[in-house]
């Protein structure tokens, strides 16, 4: 996929999001007895977004230099693609883990997937590092700093033990 093609696909996504936003915003009252209503600004912004997305679709223009990002299309090898796919999958794992599994299990699972499967390190190293990250997070953030962490059976057992 060329970069121009990718930019157009990204713009199409923005156009779709803005169109859906405009459709929702049009259901809101744009003007009330006391002036602009709740729909005034979303309608205006969604409309502008749709128009600009159409302009960028036709004239994609120059790509910007984005912070930390990389607009160069590196020659993706099969290994790079495999690695990226696993990294992308870990984000799904992160979301599902936060919903159902709690902090410790999610952290260990994400670490093992990245260290073992994406980076091909030993399972012992992956597990050891995952457990270390989870324990440091639970003790330092969850217990000492009293930060809310996603809770599962392990976290509940730990808090019962330390409190």
């Amino acid at each position, binding site marked *: 996929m060329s970069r121009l093609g990718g930019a157009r696909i990204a713009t199409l996504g923005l156009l779709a999001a803005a169109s859906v936003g405009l459709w929702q915003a049009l259901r809101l009252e744009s003007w009330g007895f006391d002036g602009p209503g709740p729909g005034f600004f979303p309608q205006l912004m969604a409309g502008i977004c749709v128009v600009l997305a159409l302009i960028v679709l036709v004239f*994609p223009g120059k790509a910007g230099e984005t*912070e930390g990002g990389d607009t160069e299309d590196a020659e993706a090898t099969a290994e790079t693609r495999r690695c990226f796919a696993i990294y992308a999958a870990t984000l799904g794992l992160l979301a599902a883990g936060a919903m159902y599994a709690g902090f410790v299990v999610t952290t260990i699972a994400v670490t093992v997937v990245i260290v073992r499967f994406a980076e091909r390190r030993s399972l012992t190293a992956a597990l050891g590092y995952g457990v270390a990250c989870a324990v440091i997070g639970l003790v330092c953030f969850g217990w000492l700093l009293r930060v809310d962490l996603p809770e599962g059976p392990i976290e509940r057992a730990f808090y019962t033990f330390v409190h």
Partner: protein
Amino acid sequence: MEALLGGFAVTLTLDNLLYCFVGVFLGTVVGILPGLGPLTTIAILLPITFKMDVTSAIIMLSGIYYGVAYGGTVTSVLMRIPGEASSVVTCLDGYEMARKGRAGAALGIAGIGSFVAGTVGVIGISFLSPPLAELVIKFGPAEYAMLMLAGLTMVTYMSSGSLARSLLMAAFGLLLGTVGSDPLNMTPRLTFGILALGDGVNLVPLAIGLFGLSEVLFMGRQKLEDMKVLAPPTGLLGFLPSREEARRSVGPVARGTVMGFLVGLLPGGGAVLASFLSYGIERKLSKHPEEFGKGAVEGLAGPESANNSGTAGAFVPLLCMGIPSNAVTALLLGAFIIHGVTPGPTILERQPEIFWGVVASMYIGNVMLLVLNLPLIGLFVRILDIPRAYLAPMILAVCLIGVYSSSGNPADVVIAVIFGFVGYGLRRHGFDLGIVILAYVLGPIFERSVRQALAISDGDPSIFFHSTLSTGFAIVAVVLLLLGLWPKRRAARA
């Protein structure tokens, strides 16, 4: 002066000194690590500050912001890898000096220049903020709306991409800011019946998704290459520049400091633009322009000073007008708002301890950075040895903690993941996400000002042109849009 001394009293407590140290230390580390910028770090650490005192939280987050400019110098000089965007110019002459065996002098000049510029920048904040706040307090909704419009237009104009793309990012950010309850009458908007969107898209999952999680995705597709690190000096004396190098640095440091601070005041300005402008000016003024890119002292001293005073300058519009001039200060504004403080002209009257406490912490933070940067460079360079395999899970775990702790709602983690993919797609194809965050944070204030102004005028849009100030801001916005459309101008700037 009395108020500033009060600020020192706030900062010189054990807690605040510790938070200041943690901030500048993290900033230095982040500046050294390529790719992990201040935006990502502040986004990730923002929720951790929720249970802190507001002054301590802002002291720490500000420390990260100005600490990054120092840290980025180390990798630029020793490895030709800019740890952060504002250090790109440092690579050109800093690395060449290091190759000629003057690594210590390059780091010393950069460190001392950064300290001088950072300190002068903070003095500028101290003296410029009170009169500016007095002026801004007279603004009505129409002036505020037009000021924000001019600011947003300037940010899109300064962006490196095409004008249409930048404007699209601004509109997208403003649209995201409308999701959730209407700020004036609490009507739910653009929630699609999803309960998790009732309070809108929160800043933390949005910022962590767009910057933190998308960064992990970028790590997944990076090629791993061996990095060559030039050795830093071992003793403190090794950082001292020669008499000739010191003489050649004085002018560029002075010019970079003043110019960087002024650029930092502009919306869209800040450290990156300041460093590039300074390099151009020094090259133009130099009697030996042919030395630039081959280890010219002026090409290092000027930009290094400019990026530090530019960072300080960006605090003036943030603190006095409540208007961020770039994405990082937009996140800092978000941090203020989350802590129940609205920066703006009234902050000096209502919460002077926060304003002057943060300003005083910058004086102290600059001294800490000088002490940290010279003797500990050897240690910092070793941070680069952390392999990606271990860095990525650590970032993901901190992102998970950050997003979840901001609301205690697992749905926010899902939202962050969605924005992680959105951010990756947009960054990969050259869309500037900094504008999205800036527009998102400004959106509710902008909307409120526009609606209040139109309500006052009974829907008559000419209210935006009733006062000279608001007309002036509108003219600035239109002129910038026209300049942005002028292809030759944009091509030259690019």
